[in-house]
């Protein structure tokens, strides 16, 4: 029996999986480091975000759902900052 919430989960998780694939393809196929960095951030932010979003309806408790959101937020903050730092290191000539 598939409910509306299940459909939502499936859609969100599929989207997340797609973004991970997009990130990987970008990491492998893009021409230089900065564009690869760009591809990576999509996988980081949207891939995990969509998966977490899709799992929220399936969480047993409000606390579990909150943890999913915190995990996403953590990855967002650290991903954005480290990408900035990696980009800076790249600009300054460290290949």
């Amino acid at each position, binding site marked *: 029996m*598939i409910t509306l919430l*299940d459909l939502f*989960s*499936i859609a969100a*998780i*599929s989207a*997340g*999986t797609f973004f*991970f*694939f997009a*990130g*990987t393809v970008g*990491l*492998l196929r893009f021409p230089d*480091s900065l564009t*690869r*960095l760009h591809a*990576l951030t999509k*996988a*980081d932010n949207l*891939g*995990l975000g969509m*998966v*977490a979003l899709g*799992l929220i309806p*399936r969480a047993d408790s409000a606390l*579990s759902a909150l*943890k*999913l959101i*915190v*995990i996403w937020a*953590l*990855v967002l*903050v*650290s*991903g954005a*900052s*480290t990408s900035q*730092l*990696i980009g*800076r*290191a*790249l600009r*300054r*000539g*460290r*290949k």
Partner: protein
Amino acid sequence: MDELLLAAAGLIVLAVAVGLARILRGSDAERLMAVQLLGTGGIAALLLIAYATDVPGVEDVALGLALLAAFAATAFVNLLDADQGDAEA
């Protein structure tokens, strides 16, 4: 439904595994990116597997992993540009 979650986890692990090829043949910065992708994808796969197989308390493990991935990335970036000299001009 559980099998679907597992399949998604398998696909993400596969994607990340292919991305790890960057570790093998890339610059230091790109290796960092690949590890970052591994961390994020790993957390996603971990959550999916945990929800599919009912391993208890895995959210806390994922929370810890997210924190550690951030810590390791900070440390590597710190050393990646520490030899670049001065602070932000």
